[in-house]
């Protein structure tokens, strides 16, 4: 396990890259969801205010 984590001494570079990938994937998953929520509030919420 410690061999796996140390990646032959390249830990910072390898895990740094995978961490960057996780960040990019997370942003791509979260940003559209947040926008959809905002749209729902703005557009559906406005309708309810008009009604």
């Amino acid at each position, binding site marked *: 396990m410690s061999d796996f984590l140390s990646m032959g001494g390249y830990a910072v570079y390898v895990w740094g*890259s995978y961490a*960057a990938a996780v960040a990019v994937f997370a942003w791509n998953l979260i940003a559209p969801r947040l926008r959809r929520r905002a749209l729902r509030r703005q557009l559906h919420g406005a309708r309810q205010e008009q009604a």
Partner: protein
Amino acid sequence: MTWIPNWLHRLASPPVFHGFADRLTPWLALASAVLLGYGLVGGLALAPADYQQGEGFRIIYVHVPAAWMSLFVYSFMAGAAVVTLIWRIKLAECVLTSCAPVGASFTALALVSGMLWGKPMWGTYWTWDARLTSELILLFLYLGVGGLQQAIGDPRAAARACALLAVVGFVNVPIVHYSVEWWNTLHQGPTITKFDKPSIAPSMLWPLLSMALGFTTFFGYVLLQRVQNELLWRERGNPWVRETLA
């Protein structure tokens, strides 16, 4: 345009597209999970260490798919741009707009993972060789498309401007790809995307291809959601939007 099949014509209708995207996204999510899952296990655990770079080569499973995606997404975006400029189809405008931030994120990932790979192997985070420089320009092009979209108020005028930039910038895509052949670069030459047998071991190659496909299905998943959002916003005056968001 009588050569367009009926189903494609109907798909350009915003409510039809929305339903289509809703039905497709779960499958893309599943495919991404499976492909990325195998790619990660294969790349991090099953593939043997490289005889020169040791375990450090495993950055390839992030860097190369990200770089391929940076070019693929730009090509996709440029295709949408051509459709926008010629036929002015709203769906194409939304695809064009939605590709920019996603493509930028993959390009940034390619650059960052490349820097982290370069430091231990080349002894430097950066050099202004043709591959790295043209990929950085690709990032600027993506940011330019996104910036134009934000800056121009009218969505249709914004789409026209973005489409022009996307199409003009497309010249950079073959430049990035062939940079390692046309110039002397620190970045290595092609091992897979060339007209020859790949010069990489199969046990290293299969997880890489799986990651590339996983990145692609993930892009599809994200793109569909972003395009849905764009359409919902643009069509906000129409009743189908309120029904959909209920």
